[in-house]
């Protein structure tokens, strides 16, 4: 009897001792758990689909094993070149391990880069890039505070779609612009109007209560089935005609904005409020282009992260995208509000200020970055000045030139005027380049000038042409003594380029060029007819 109870009490005492000791350890463990984010955050966040919450609870420890098996399978299939299962497998892996952002980043990158590249047709490639983006968007929803996913998503936009390294990049840009144009309804939507329109169905119903004429019209149209109406909206790119006729213009526009922003959110996971914020922070961006989205996501990422370590890559991404936007962040279309494969990307001068500010912030905050960034900033300023100059913003160019003189104290800027400076920038290339390079550059300038005429920007066209003329003259002066093949006459170059454009570009562009350069073209034809023989002689002599 006694023995039995003795054992029991000994065990009891031991248990109590252990429990007591645990108190000291518990706090430390809890701190570690919080610090390393070992426990999943609650799934009360909106946007997390119930299936994910369910699977993480129900499968328990097995989801890790299952995810591993699926991962191995995906890798194996990819090795063999069988991609058709990849979308489904990636989806499952993300649902099983929603917090494993590195895996999601890899899978998104994999689809957008590796798999897309293995397809021949541009449609297929675009599809895979889009899948990568969609996966990352889902990952962002599940990991709103993780910088890695924002980075990857932004990178796909900036590097894959934005840059020119992929052979199909023009196709990507065109398709993306097309899809977005259809969604927006026009090239530059009224973001303010979008931002104030109702964001959810409840808000819409509040705006249009049951007795509101707009709501009554909707009821009459299809008994208030908003989902179906949304489907029709997506199909047509706008409100159905019958319904639109019944609504007052202001109500129609509110409804229109409601559907469009819902559509944007669904397909691209983007909010008009944030777009406005981005526009305000960085300048008016062209939201048909991928760089804008890269900036968007990096910006959202900055909001959700803290600390230098997490934010640095995002800041850099914004800077790179801003520079890219500066260089070619505005889309010119032959016909406004209609995307065609003959789109032209020209510099977006609206972001210059934001970019400058960013450079300055980096230079002042990070001591290690100061000198390398200073050099970058100087180059950027020079580029900005030249661009502004040739795109008919001479005043702005002049202001920047002042800054270049006084703050950066660039050597050339201290002695030259703005005009000289710009020409000098071009001439550097001329001095070092050979004939072929110069010809290319000149043709480039002339082409840009003509094309700008085609796209309707005559001032910029004139500025480009003026610069081209000066470069041409400068070259002629420097090499007139040499007995080498010379450039054809300037007007001939111009006419030739214009004619080439007219032949290959759609009528809207061609017509504008033709109208503008009618005279020149006729003259050139005449000259060509006359100088047909002499031109050949010249060439023969030159050789």
């Amino acid at each position, binding site marked *: 009897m006694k023995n039995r109870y003795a054992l029991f009490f000994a065990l009891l005492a031991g248990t109590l001792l252990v429990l007591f000791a645990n108190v000291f350890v518990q706090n430390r463990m809890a701190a570690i758990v919080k610090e390393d984010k070992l426990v999943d955050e609650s799934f009360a966040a909106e946007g997390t689909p119930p299936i994910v919450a369910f699977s993480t609870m129900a499968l328990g420890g097995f989801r890790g094993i299952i995810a591993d098996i699926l991962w191995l399978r995906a890798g*194996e299939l990819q090795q063999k070149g*069988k991609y*058709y299962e990849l*979308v*489904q497998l990636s989806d499952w892996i993300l649902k099983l391990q929603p917090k494993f952002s590195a895996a999601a980043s890899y899978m998104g990158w994999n689809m957008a880069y*590796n798999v897309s*590249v293995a397809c*021949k047709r541009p449609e297929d490639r675009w599809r895979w890039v889009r899948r990568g983006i969609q996966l990352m968007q889902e990952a962002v929803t599940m990991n709103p505070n993780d910088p890695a996913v924002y980075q990857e998503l932004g990178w796909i936009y900036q590097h894959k779609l934005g840059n020119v390294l992929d*052979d199909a990049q023009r196709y990507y840009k065109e398709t993306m612009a097309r899809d977005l144009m259809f969604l927006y309804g026009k090239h530059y939507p009224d973001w303010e109007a979008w931002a104030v329109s109702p964001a959810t169905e409840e808000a819409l119903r509040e705006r249009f209560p049951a007795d509101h004429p707009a709501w009554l019209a909707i009821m009459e149209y299809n008994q208030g089935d908003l989902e179906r109406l949304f489907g029709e909206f997506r199909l047509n790119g706008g409100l159905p005609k019958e319904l639109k006729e019944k609504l007052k213009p202001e109500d129609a526009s509110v409804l229109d904005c409601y559907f469009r922003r819902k559509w944007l959110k669904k397909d691209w996971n983007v909010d008009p409020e944030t777009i406005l914020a981005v526009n305000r922070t960085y300048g008016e961006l062209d939201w048909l282009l991928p760089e804008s989205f890269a900036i968007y996501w990096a910006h959202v990422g900055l909001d959700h992260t803290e600390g230098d370590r997490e934010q640095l890559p995002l800041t850099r991404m914004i800077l790179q995208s801003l520079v890219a936007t500066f260089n070619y962040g505005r889309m010119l279309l032959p016909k406004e509000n209609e995307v065609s494969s003959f789109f032209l990307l020209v510099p977006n001068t609206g972001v210059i200020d934001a970019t400058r500010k960013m450079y300055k912030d980096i230079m002042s905050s990070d001591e290690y970055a100061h000198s390398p960034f200073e050099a970058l900033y100087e180059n950027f300023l020079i580029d900005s000045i030249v661009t502004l100059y040739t795109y008919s913003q001479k005043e702005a160019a002049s202001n920047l030139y002042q800054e270049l003189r006084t703050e950066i104290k660039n050597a050339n800027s201290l002695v030259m005027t703005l005009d000289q400076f710009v020409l000098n920038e071009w001439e550097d290339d001329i001095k070092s380049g050979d004939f072929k390079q110069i010809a290319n550059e000149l043709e480039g300038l002339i082409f840009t000038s003509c094309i700008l005429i085609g796209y309707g920007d005559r001032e910029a066209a004139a500025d480009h042409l003026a610069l081209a003329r000066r470069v041409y003259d400068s070259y002629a002066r420097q090499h007139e003594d040499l007995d080498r093949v010379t450039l054809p006459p300037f007007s001939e170059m111009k006419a030739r380029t214009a004619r080439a454009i007219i032949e290959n570009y759609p009528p809207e562009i061609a017509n504008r060029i033709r109208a503008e350069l009618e005279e020149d073209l006729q003259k050139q034809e005449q000259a060509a007819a006359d100088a047909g023989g002499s031109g050949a002689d010249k060439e023969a002599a030159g050789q």
Partner: protein
Amino acid sequence: MTAFLAIVKLTCRSAVRSHIFRLLLILLLLSIFLLPFTLLGDGTPKGEVQIFLQYSLGFVGFILCLSSVWLACSEVSSDVETAQIHMIVVKPVRRAVVLLGKYTGVVLIHLALLLIAAVTVYAFLSFRLSSADMTEDERLMLDEQVLTARALYKPVRPDFNALAQAELDRRIASAKEHGQDTFLLQNDQTRREEFLEIRKELIVTYGLIEEGDSLFWQFEGLPKDLTEDDVIFLRYTIYVNRFYVQDQNSVRGHWIFAANYTRPDDNGGETVVSDLIATPEEDILTAAQNEITVPIRNSYFVYDGKAQVGFLNKDTNTSELNFEEGRGPFLLIREAGFFSNYCRAILVMAVGILSVTLLASAVAACLSLPIAIFFSAAYMLTGGLANYLVSSIPDVADFQAEYTGTFGYRFGDLMLNLIVPLQDFFVTGHLANGELISFPFIGLLFAKDFILRMLPVFLLGAWIYTRRELALVSKRG
């Protein structure tokens, strides 16, 4: 014979009455119809067909395997455990016949189910295909690449061992000649390491072609009875330099096909003349899988079951073009239709069911129900994992793997020699890719898995069944 048939019939009836069996049947049918709506394809009709085939048949196969294990174990074990078997073995029936009868019953039921499921899947697929709208291109791709059965022919791989050995010998001889340090000769260890290094280098650089250079591949074992209607495809993937994926490029080059034709010669007989015919130079997209049709007549191209294909690198911008091993070039010849291939895939699955049931019956003949099921499940799991281990760890002989990798590989290898992995019977990957499941392949699978590895287990189980004291396990005690 009558006794055998009676036991088969009884097993079938008993099986159909089992609740679990009915549940699995419903699951089977549901999965066929619901799967297509829950799976995400890659967006193309081709991808959707592929994923449908892969997953629906895969799911069917998996469920049928589980079901047959469950049923076989249940049938064989429960009779012994409830002493029902006493009534049977006191009759003039051999115990082996009893076991065989139960096995046959279970197998018959599952083969019937397999047939039903196969027909349903096929019908469903046909229906969806006929009602789907696709572009001409998409339909052509589907027909050429998925709804077909093309045999894949790989080029003859050079004997890297011999080449490496030759190179090693050459280096040693040259070192001797120049009076250099002959450490290579000194011990086997360094020689072996050097050999492996050379071999690795050879393998990796095998597919590299420099600008202006060309590389030829030999194909052997091609069918000799090709007509001009049979189309031969050449599938290849080119990479720039050695890296898998680079920024996209177009490179220039062209393919060269060796043509052999006979010409009457002076002696009144015929001589065989070889000629090389080149396709025009073109831009080829790197890293993308390309398929072109062989432009010359089959009778010229394939001679005595052999063919030769070469590639000439005419690209000035890149340094080397690379044909990764395992990515081509391959010759694909359509040797059967999709329906035939589909039937073959089902046949392989049937062999799988036969094997799995064999295992389960044998195990259940010796052990109680829960242990029998556990044992069968453990067997299948080990087989599956062994397969993964072997396929995911690089070949130990060619490359150096770390210690755990080596161990895992060796273990997996050993297990695969003893155990049948279930993956062997799931050939839906081939089916979905339009690859031929050849009869020799099926025959080999049958011999290797069913006869060589499962049958001994069954015979052992049957022997134990015959010799055990059945009354020992009676629950009455």
